[in-house]
């Protein structure tokens, strides 16, 4: 066989290998989807007709400290604080951490909340950048503001952990809009079992929705494609991905925008790690790993009905940066804790969950890129015929589309956040169109993230926000 012939065989075998990989992960996705559907059914049956007044007015409900780091959030901080103050929970402390903002975030807080300096006694269990001042709102006594030198999000959360006094801490992004009853829902796994270390809620896309007084007054789909595709992506990630993991070994990611943790467990592991861009995932892995190593329960639950809304990037540049950062974070965390991979000591966490994140979440863009490039080259040199190329696309993208549709169906059967005809039509449209161009772009961004990780880039990149009040429609 000549060199051309060998190259053709390699190309064809490569394509078949990629196809087999897609079929394998698609099968696992099907298992995940079945698990998510089962979990959703049980969850909906449990909460249907439930009155949450028991938690809302209970003297024995666990206390919660909300930790909201803010860095240069002057344009959105008022709405965010307003949303936090509307949260319905009986024993709630709100801690805003101003991470050395240079845009007057602290001035906005001072002006709007009538801040009074105070001197509480707290223990610096976790080392952080110096705290410049502590304030309590004169209008809302449960609201504390920590003003500290800039040290990043993880450092801010650690400062919040030091000062917070509640049993549970809820880490959020300051620009996240949390639904008023979300905490009553989110606390459920902690009431249900002593084994739960952390719980995460659903993040939904706020772009396109109407926001009033820091609350989503009407949920709508964004009219422009980029945020629209992200709506479908977020639904898929949360309602199908994370929910499915509840029954298959527990979650590895609790979104940094909305997660609830036992404060003592967080303090015991030394809080968040500052030298990673994936601090939200890293802390969950460390919590679970530490618990397993000490023979403790390591349950990390995802609850689908507590909802936080966030503004997603509406420009390719910013979105690309965000995905780059997410993938760098993923790579970093998986490398740091590589000892967990296939280690039976960690049970399902080491044998199922961790390998999935390595071979699917981390390496999928690499495989997908190899498949796409190989396909194009194969077609050009005539090693791969057109029917195979079509088959490849049908299997890879058709399956993805069907998973998206199944997720939308799951949403329609459970929470039904989008009510209008236009919203349903847009949701379906974005679910179909995201396969053509957007999905390939995310592969590129994630590959770039991987390359940047290997080149040891550790920057966050700026996230430009428009603010909710001024942009009801995106």
């Amino acid at each position: 066989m000549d060199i051309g012939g060998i190259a053709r065989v390699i190309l064809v075998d490569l394509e078949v290998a990629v196809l087999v990989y897609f079929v394998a992960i698609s099968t696992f996705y099907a298992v995940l989807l079945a698990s998510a559907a089962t979990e959703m059914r049980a969850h909906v049956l449990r909460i249907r007709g439930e009155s949450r007044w028991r938690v809302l007015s209970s003297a024995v409900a666990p206390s919660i400290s909300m930790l909201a780091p803010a860095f240069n959030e002057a344009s959105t901080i008022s709405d965010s604080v307003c949303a936090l103050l509307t949260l319905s929970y009986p024993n709630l402390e709100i801690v805003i951490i101003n991470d050395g903002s240079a845009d007057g975030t602290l001035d906005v807080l001072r002006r709007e909340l009538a801040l009074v300096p105070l001197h509480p006694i707290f223990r610096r269990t976790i080392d952080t950048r110096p705290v410049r001042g502590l304030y309590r709102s004169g209008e809302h006594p449960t609201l504390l503001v920590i003003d500290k030198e800039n040290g990043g999000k993880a450092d801010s959360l650690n400062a919040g952990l030091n000062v917070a006094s509640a049993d549970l801490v809820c880490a959020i992004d300051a620009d996240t809009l949390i639904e008023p009853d979300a905490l009553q829902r989110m606390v459920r796994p902690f009431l249900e079992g002593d084994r739960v270390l952390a719980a995460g809620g659903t993040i939904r896309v706020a772009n396109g929705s109407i926001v009033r007084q820091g609350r989503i007054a009407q949920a709508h789909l964004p009219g422009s494609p980029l945020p629209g595709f992200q709506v479908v992506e977020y639904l898929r990630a949360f309602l199908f991905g994370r929910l499915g993991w509840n029954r298959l070994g527990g979650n590895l990611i609790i979104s940094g925008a909305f997660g609830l943790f036992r404060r003592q467990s967080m303090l015991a592991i030394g809080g968040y790690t500052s030298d990673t861009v994936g601090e939200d995932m890293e802390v969950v892995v460390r919590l679970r790993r530490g618990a397993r190593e000490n023979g403790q329960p390591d349950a990390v639950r995802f609850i689908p009905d507590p909802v936080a809304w966030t503004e997603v990037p509406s420009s390719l540049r910013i979105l690309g940066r965000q995905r780059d950062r997410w993938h760098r974070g993923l790579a970093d965390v998986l490398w740091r804790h590589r000892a967990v991979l296939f280690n039976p000591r960690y049970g399902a966490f080491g044998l199922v969950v961790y390998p999935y994140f390595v071979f699917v979440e981390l390496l999928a863009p690499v495989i997908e890129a190899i498949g796409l490039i190989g396909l194009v080259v194969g077609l050009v040199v005539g090693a791969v015929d057109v029917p195979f190329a079509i088959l490849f696309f049908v299997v890879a993208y058709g399956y993805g589309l069907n998973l998206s549709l199944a997720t939308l169906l799951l949403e329609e059967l459970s929470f039904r956040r989008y009510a209008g005809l236009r919203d349903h039509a847009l949701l379906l449209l974005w679910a179909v169109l995201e396969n053509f161009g957007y999905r390939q772009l995310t592969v590129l961004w994630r590959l770039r993230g991987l390359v940047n990780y290997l080149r040891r880039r550790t920057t966050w990149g700026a996230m430009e926000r428009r603010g909710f009040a001024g942009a009801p429609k995106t």
Partner: protein
Amino acid sequence: MIPRLDLLGTAVAIQLAVAAALLSCYVGFAARRLVDREPARDRALRAVLAELQAGTAPRAPEELERLDRRSRLRVILRAAATVSGSSKARLRRIAAAVGLTADAERASRSRFWWRRLEAAHLCSALGLPTPAIRMLLHDPVTAVRAQAVEWALVDPEPATIRTLLGLLDDPEALCRFAVLDTLIRMGRPVVPELARHLRSRSGIGAVPALTVAAAMADAALLPELERLSEDEDPRCRTACLNAFGAVGGVGAAAAVEHGLGDRDGAVREAAAQNAALLGQWTAAPAIARLLRDPTWEVRRAAGYALRSFGAIGQVYLRRALDDPDHFAADMAHQLLDLSVTS
């Protein structure tokens, strides 16, 4: 190795069939919601609320009767969340008129856990004294058991209270939480049974009941609290001190002062906190000694307690500024809002 066209056709056909099925289901459910069920439920809810406000004898509105059983249940549960007193009594009659009360009775014996849960939800929301729900206090499903515990609020009889106190040892956290919450909400009727329950308890097993005792803040519980304050388990002694702090009185103050010298740090911390709660300034010298305690939490609790005593506490804190123990001096510095010593 190259797949044949028939394989391609099959793959495309399967993908398309699945997509069409999912799409049809999605569109079907969305359309049904858009044109039918939600507005009908909303109309029924409005009619029910209007009926509750009417002066005449309550009757089931037609809008409610037109709905299926599950939708009726949802409407009644939503209405129940917004009314109380005589309006709730009227709502009970409407629920009975549309057959929901009888259905709840049947559902409480269902082999499906979610049907039993529905029954417990309805009976709790409407405050229905359905005897069958009492059986659910021993249901094997935690969610059902916890909901039945919530229902028990409408039945604060000694037998029910005894059952609830027994459930304080439930293996499931949700159930224990529901029991604690319900007993605390029941209030004074719980006290005699609680005292009896505490008599047979010790160690960690007494802690949940002591939490209820702290919420009751009833002097009738003092004898049992005094016995348990000598328990071997520090968690039990801590819970006792919290109950003493809530009950108050001379006996409680003496027990709290005794706790300041406990061998366990968590107990000393609780003692300092409760001394502050009781305004027990006579314990200030003992509390000031705790500023030198090896446990940081105890030093902080002692400092806060001294600060809460006003002028007397300030004197002790100022003295502590020159304490040779630098931990005590440091805590005093912080509490007096002075710059922290290096």
